[in-house]
């Protein structure tokens, strides 16, 4: 039996064995530590790369948004001027309708303004920053000539305050003597009085 593996050998080589064990342990710690550090750096690198890609994408979005906003600034300025982001001023609408009725010499004008509601958009579309609100307005007018009715509707829908898209309208001729000064045309029209509400509440 080799003296290395005798009791005397173990005793004599205790220090050397200990040094070897320490070297193996320290080496293993170093290797594992560096391996762990390398993995951590790799993970960090991947995360940093992802952050970089996200930052680039965010910057691209911001640039596109800035360009879009620059392009949209004039439009938005017009929308603000027309009160799209303001709450309804119903008295203004009542006065406007009355004024237009007189201007276009309508024989009669009946209208209803329904309570304001959230306007459902086609395809269930929603906007993250604004609520689309609308009040449905129904009009029934009688006039001497269909031109008067059309002019009334056209001027209402082209109003400089608010948006009033007419989505349905029926014009029909009323039977009667053509040479008398009575209503010859009757119109039933429906339109949406649309306003927007900022979800952040920065506008009324």
């Amino acid at each position: 039996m080799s003296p290395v593996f005798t009791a005397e050998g173990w005793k004599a080589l205790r220090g050397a064995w200990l040094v070897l064990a320490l070297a193996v342990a320290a080496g293993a710690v170093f290797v594992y530590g560096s391996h762990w550090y390398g993995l951590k750096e790799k993970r960090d690198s991947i995360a940093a790369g992802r952050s970089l890609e996200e930052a680039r994408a965010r910057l691209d979005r911001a640039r596109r948004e800035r360009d879009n906003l620059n392009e949209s600034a004039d439009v938005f300025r017009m929308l603000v001027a027309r009160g799209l982001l303001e709450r309804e001023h119903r008295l203004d609408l009542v006065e406007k309708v009355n004024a237009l009725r007189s201007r276009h010499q309508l024989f009669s004008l009946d209208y209803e303004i329904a309570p304001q509601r959230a306007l459902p958009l086609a395809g269930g579309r929603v906007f993250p920053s604004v609520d689309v609100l609308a009040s449905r307005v129904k009009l029934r007018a009688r006039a001497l000539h269909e031109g008067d009715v059309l002019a009334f509707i056209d001027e209402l829908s082209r109003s400089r305050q608010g948006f009033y898209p007419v989505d349905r309208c029926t014009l029909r001729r009323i039977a009667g003597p053509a040479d008398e000064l009575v209503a010859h045309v009757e119109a039933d029209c429906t339109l949406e009085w649309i306003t927007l509400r900022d979800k952040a509440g920065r506008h009324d």
Partner: protein
Amino acid sequence: MAHFLYLTNSRLVSMATRGKRIAARREFAVSGEGVAEFDAYLATLRTEPVHLLTDLAEEDFRLDTIPHVGSRDRDAILARKLTQMFRNTPFRYAVVQGREPEGRRDDRVLYTAITNPEVLRPWLDVIERLNVPLGGIYSAAVFSSAMLQALDLLFPHALLVTFTPGGAMRQTYFRDQEIKFSRLTPIDPEEGQSLGTLISEETTRTWQYLDSLRHFGEHDRLEVCVMLHAGDRLLVQPSLRDFAQIQHHILDMEGVGAKLGIKPAPLGSTAEEVFVHLFLARPGRNHFASPQMRRFDTLRRARITLRRTAVAVFAACLAWTGWNMDRALATTDQDLRVTRELGMLNQEYDRVTRSMPSFGVGGSTMRDSVAFYNSAIRGFPRVTDFAVALSRVLDRHPEVQLGQLAWLATDDPKATPAIAKLDLKEPPPVRAVTAEAAPARPAQPEAFGGGRYEIALVAGTVHVANNDFRGALADVNRLADELSALPGTRADVVESPLDTASNVQIQGRHSEREPQTMEPRFVLRVVRDHGAAP
């Protein structure tokens, strides 16, 4: 560093080496006083491994042959033979030198032993007591075979003559480089006898002995190689006479030193320093020391191996760590670049954000508002535009009288506005009797779209001569065609002045007096697609 001991019957020479040089030399008398001095001296060198070369008169040599067997059996045979031959000493050794050329081709074996172990005992006791690692005990005579090769003394019959400290002459006979015999003779010249004469007489006596053992053939010549310092050469060489059977060669110590790389060359004719240098260049195998005697050296070498292994493992781990760290740091450098770029991107983002137009609302509010306007309101159709386009076409058809227009803007191309039935003053004499039409499918009013489609029902009458249904149909179809010619517009006759389909009942009611003209009713469905319009 190593420590060599060269033991003769009268002297122990200690030579401590550093690298390939002898750094310290000291001699001790073979006596109790010498052992005590050696004890004290060795205590200062106790960590260095000791190699003990013996050059003793008590060393015996015997030749033998054994059957050629496997190594394990051979070792057993040799051990048994050694025990039989040298029963009283543990310092025994056997070396297999070759095989017989004829017969069973047995192995040729040389057995050697220090027959009186007591000459070694005092020195080994000191070594053992001081726990000095003993590398081995070597027979200088056996080891001298390496000298023949190193000095190119490749004669068929060579007698190597060396001198030992303490005044003795070693003669070792080699046949074809295999040691066959060795003997130690004290140098004790008689009155009037020179060293050269003594050497000559001793070598002649050795030749005679070997010849009596039939080592030589008729024409064989013994080459006697005498290792001498230049200072002794002049004293020796004149006395050496060559014969047909004996040829002398003087190995000058300077020349030997130059050939073996010994610097400086030994200052005397004794060969112990040559052996030490030869051993440093070509370490020999242990001859006489048992594993028990060598245990401290075994442990020392194991300790060195363990430490070297530890260093190697640690170095390998450090290298591996370095490789890992190099890769990690390369990644770190890349991360730093990414971080710098990230910082620049964030700065640019802040700058872009600050440069965005603001109306007191968030950018998203502005974007959504404009998006809603562009998608839902901007291109929303107007009934007045439709009416104007319709009027322009109707102007080219004075025979057509418009009675009713039902219009709607929707995203549903199949939607149809409701229309009221026209009451005719004078119904035409022939008319189709149809089942009640299915109610129109109104557009869903809840969902507000962009108004891609304008859908209208145009109801009216066409003024034609009485019973000219063909003309009325042509007029209405022409009107529909002209409306279809408008961009993105398609007009279909929903209700014809006279439905002539085979599955429809037709009623005619002609009276005695009929008017000159008639005004049959028609309905057109007009669809204007703003998505398809250029």
